């Protein structure tokens, strides 16, 4: 058993560690702490941040991949290695209980009638019982509602206990043991966590017995797919900005600060790039990736490798097409800042240009960068769905909300309609994007100097 990480996994970890470092460093600087204080004072900000962090937590779990050799059914040690993420292992009963085809949320029978032979050998056109969901019930129709409610209550209770344990643990180790010392932010966070824990507990307790969000065409649990898609959404939302930021900041500052031919070249670059329809660039990049993979089949032996490569490439190309907006903003801001008194003064004192850029200009445009990053995040998550629709998004084998929506277009035309995959993708995506948007709002209010007065 060992770790087996993909490219995007490394980047996810790098990103998590990097952001933690930044936060740690920023927490020591008064002027950086002040706007964040404002964020933590806002209920919406704290609640949405907590929700976002829970998503990130799931994403990180899903990025921790372990390679191991499972035993074969006949007990021999298998030669096959299987790679699973920690999240897969946590979700094991839900992941492995695969039915044959569609079933409704909380159903115990299939969604369509099938020809079945009963004990007497008579064929009947009936709804077949599912292999796993509700299989523990003898007479499912009568017992099911009772069973679901019991299990749900148990789950909520379980969630509550876990939450309590966590709170007690935190209280025990933190200094803020008295009631008064606890800030509003901490309380908000605790209550949000309580809700999340209760939901998680409910899923944990119902999951092994029912398909909470039904199953898809090949019988895979929709809830599992929706949860697995979180990582894809997060990766696209964050890695893209990681690609975009260095380019946008470097070129934006240079264009604004050095002016002259540097400015001309950079302006030419971004005008040219942004005048080409982004779809075309993305389509070309995805096709290129396919050519590359077709020519180097040895580098990509597993489905995960291929999917991961495509995801990474998608992030890169999205990054390359989206830096122009921020670059333009930064250029305009830098143009203003370089005429400021303190920059003039620094120049008069003979401070090096790089020094000025680093010391005086960069810190003063950071709020713009911050706001753009948070605002872009939700846009990118939404863009993934659209790209998957025209087949230039993530690999079809990758779990993503875009792929789920894409498949469910066909399902919506069914009668009776198969609504749950679309609904599941909708709920999860909506939760993430809504949290991101609300958080972005709060961050913008906190960081935008115009709002401060």
């Amino acid at each position, binding site marked *: 058993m060992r770790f087996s990480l993909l490219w995007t996994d490394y980047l996810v970890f790098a990103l998590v560690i990097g952001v933690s470092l930044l936060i740690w460093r920023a927490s020591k600087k008064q002027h950086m702490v002040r706007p964040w204080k404002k964020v933590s004072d806002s209920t919406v900000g704290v609640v949405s941040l907590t929700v976002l962090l829970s998503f990130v937590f799931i994403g990180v779990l899903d990025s921790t991949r372990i390679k191991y050799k499972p035993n074969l059914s006949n007990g021999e040690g298998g030669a096959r290695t299987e790679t699973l993420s920690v999240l897969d292992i946590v979700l094991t009963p839900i992941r492995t209980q695969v039915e044959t085809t569609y079933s409704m949320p909380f159903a115990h029978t299939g969604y369509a009638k099938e020809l079945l032979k009963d004990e007497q050998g008579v064929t009947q056109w009936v709804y077949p019982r599912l292999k796993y969901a509700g299989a523990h019930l003898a007479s499912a129709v009568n017992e099911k509602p009772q069973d679901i409610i019991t299990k749900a209550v148990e789950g909520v209770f379980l969630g509550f206990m876990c939450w309590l344990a966590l709170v007690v643990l935190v209280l025990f180790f933190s200094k803020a043991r008295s009631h008064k010392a606890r800030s509003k932010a901490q309380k908000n966070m605790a209550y949000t966590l309580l809700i999340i824990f209760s939901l998680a507990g409910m899923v944990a307790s119902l999951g092994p017995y029912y398909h909470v969000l039904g199953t898809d065409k090949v019988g895979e649990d929709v809830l599992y797919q929706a949860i697995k898609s979180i990582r894809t959404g997060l990766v696209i939302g964050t890695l893209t900005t990681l690609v975009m930021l260095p380019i946008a900041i470097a070129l934006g500052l240079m264009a604004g600060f050095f002016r002259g031919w540097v400015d001309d070249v950079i302006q*030419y670059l971004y*005008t*040219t790039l*942004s*005048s*080409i*329809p982004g*779809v*075309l*660039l993305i*389509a*070309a990049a995805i*096709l*290129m990736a396919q*050519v590359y993979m077709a020519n180097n089949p040895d580098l990509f032996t597993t489905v995960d490798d291929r999917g991961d490569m495509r995801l990474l490439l998608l992030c890169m190309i999205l990054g390359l097409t989206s830096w122009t907006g921020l670059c333009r903003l930064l250029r305009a801001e830098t143009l203003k800042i370089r005429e400021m008194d303190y920059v003039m003064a620094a120049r008069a004192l003979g401070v090096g240009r790089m020094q000025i850029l680093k010391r005086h200009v960069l810190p003063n445009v950071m709020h713009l960068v911050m706001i753009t990053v948070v605002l872009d995040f*939700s846009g990118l998550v*939404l863009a993934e*769905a*659209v790209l998957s*629709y*025209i*087949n230039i998004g993530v690999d079809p084998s990758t779990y993503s*909300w875009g792929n789920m*929506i894409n498949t*469910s*277009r066909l399902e*919506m035309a069914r009668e009776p309609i198969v609504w749950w995959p*679309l609904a599941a993708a*909708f709920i999860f*995506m*909506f939760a993430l*994007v*809504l949290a991101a*948007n*609300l958080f972005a*709002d709060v961050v913008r209010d906190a960081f935008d100097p*115009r709002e401060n007065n």
Partner: protein
Amino acid sequence: MINYILRRLLYVLPVLLGVNILTFVLFFVVNSPDDMARMQLGDKHVSQAAVNNWKQQRGYDLPLIWNQQQNGMLAIQKTIFFEKSVGLFFLDLGLSDNGRDIVADISQRMWPSLAIAIPSLIFGVLANITFALLLIFYRGSYLEFGGLFVCITLMSISGLFYIIAGQFLIGKLLALTPISGYAPGLEAFKFIILPVVIGVISGLGSGARWYRTLFLEEAAKDYVRTAKAKGLSELQVLFKHVLKNAMVPILTGIVVILPLLFMGSLITESFFGIPGLGSYTIDAISSQDFAIVRSMVFLGSFLYIIGLLLTDISYTLVDPRVRLN
């Protein structure tokens, strides 16, 4: 002014050249002329001779960018890149790879795109401004809070959901509009109403919020306070001063996207079966019709730059303080 416009127009040339080179490189890194020929010729019984024949007739049998068999300028001129690019700058787009005249196709497909885009823009802007003004008017009340929440909710829903839900509800369940399709002339009305309504609603969230920030900035200015002090009612202040003065950024924001309306909307057009330019581009990409892809990218970037230029000009027209140099 004239001088400035001329200079900006000249600036268009290098940008278009860059765009053209980039399209060319991206396309031919992925596809070889052989691939294109096979794509057009179909599956069954395709021989190499047929492929060569196709390439020769379409002019794809030349080297890509450098012809070693020729000397001097001819080494550049006798190439796919040169022969296919020159026409673009004279707006002679030529024939598509499947043998249709591109200009004829574009001039035909432009109208459905505009029929969707223009009403979407007009109604969208009106709806956004109305909503934003309401938000400003009810500042501080629970209606504003509710309105803002509606905005963020609308923003957080993927555009695909609006289309899927709209077709399902209005087209299928309520049977109020055709699910998809298009007809020219007045008949188009029943086909465009659903895409336009969906376009307006899906853009309402972000649009209204954007206008709201514009208005808020304006409302915070001193003259507004003076106006209020003079005893003007809140509504009068909003319409007479705030809206009027915010018109500059609103108009310039619209001007920049005006030319791009020709390009149509990709997703809407393919979902609603509207034969516009958006679906034209997507179809061309998927059938690897280089001639169309190249022409559409060229046209798109040209319109984009025209949009930028129009914005600059409109700034001077609405605000005499801004001077172009």
